[in-house]
């Protein structure tokens, strides 16, 4: 355990693995996991939308599960394993979900896209029915103000079919 309470309440040191790289950083105790990724580590792929868990733009994987990084204190994740959108591509090859978003034009402005993609990748290993409506329900925590939902669902279905084949 590397988080130690101190009378001054701040700062403290955390050890967090992000995209297979181990980091040990001294941070303000109030730092959200989202700000830790963006500001402390400079991994700005993860986006800040509402900062209240309502939009899904900040979705990352913690120990393989998707969560809203804005509602987590980084200090709660000492020792945890985080994956962000920067960690999806392997050996210069896009993750099948990323490729499907490009193929299907699953975005307009692109601001919500990293969150959409992180949710979609997590969805692949969650209990989820086969229909478009099942995908829409499983993706309801990711808001797209451009309204690219139709292509987002199509991209996710493409990726699921490809990975099932």
């Amino acid at each position, binding site marked *: 355990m590397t*988080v130690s309470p101190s009378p001054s309440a701040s700062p403290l040191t955390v050890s967090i693995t992000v995209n297979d790289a181990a980091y040990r950083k001294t941070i303000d105790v109030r730092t959200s996991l989202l700000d830790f990724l963006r500001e402390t580590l400079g991994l700005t792929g993860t986006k800040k939308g509402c900062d209240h*868990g309502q939009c899904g733009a900040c979705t990352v994987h913690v120990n393989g599960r998707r969560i809203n990084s804005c509602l987590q204190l980084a*200090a*709660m994740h000492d020792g945890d394993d985080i994956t962000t959108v920067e960690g999806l591509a392997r050996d210069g090859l896009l993750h099948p979900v990323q490729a499907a978003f490009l193929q299907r034009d699953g975005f307009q402005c692109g601001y919500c896209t990293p969150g959409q993609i992180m949710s979609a990748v997590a969805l692949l290993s969650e209990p989820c029915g086969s229909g478009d409506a099942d995908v829409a329900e*499983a993706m*309801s*925590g990711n808001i797209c103000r451009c309204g690219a939902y139709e292509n987002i669902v199509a991209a996710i279905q493409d990726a699921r079919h490809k990975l099932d084949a």
Partner: protein
Amino acid sequence: MKLFELRRPADPLEAIRDVLSPGARFIAGGTTMVDLMRLDVERPDVLVDLNHLGLTDIERTADGGVRLGAMTRNADVAHHPWIVAEYPVLSQALLSGASAQLRNAATTGGNVLQRTRCIYFRDVHAACNKRIPGSGCPALDGYHRNLAVLGTSANCIATNPSDMNVALISLDAIVSLRSSEGDRDVAFAEFHREPGDTPECETVLRPGELIAAISLPVARPHARSYYLKLRDRASYEFALASTAVVMSFEDGTMRDVRLALGGVATRPWPAAQAARLLEGRSPEPKLFRDAAELALLGAIGRPENRFKIELVKRCIVSALAHVTLAEFL
């Protein structure tokens, strides 16, 4: 966000000691606490992190029921094969709430203590009797479309927003509490309080007490259950009105009926009298409507939320019809 000291206790006993510090609060999944800290609604001096200290088991109890550790995540409970098979109302209620991301983080114990979505509670620039006792309630004559019609007082009409809590009432769940004074169990239906003159006191939880687990009594053989949630959009939205119903059948009559309501009350609402009306009777639409009328006796509507009284009655009738459908065929 106000500065605080973070404590990371090694086990629940240490957590119970830590939370006795002045201004100390627990943090579990963070989905309510971090949100409210960012709004300055929660301003803890000490935050006691309950992650990484256990309380994460879903296990059988001696009587064949199920015990959910307080730190089990909502998604894990909702998809657990025992819950899906034996307590479908709980799985349905959990999956009807929030989003997949939030359900992965939110915990059973945290959901029990989920705070209201009343906009005046969430706005530190507004008066709110729940946040600052005695400061007043702007919701009474203000924005209250999402607020309560049952269990209200002249001081507070804030709705308990949890879907899970409604299902737990219908399942006769038990809350297991731990403190330095010892352990105690509280019936879930007795855990939350109506606001009355003290809307700041939402539960019977005492200072220094930790929710350790929620226990579900053994599911009755052939029990049926259902959670019906009505809301403004089809997903990722709080309930305007919801109904949890659990019952079994013997010779075409309804037995062991439990009814609970959500989205319309200041606490997860047991509709016990309505459930008793159904007990031992054969299902029929007129009886369902009578039960719904009984459940809403004493409801107080205001201009923007009056529609919820009729809405929740129809929700009750519809949920009962769904659960008893096979009896009509």
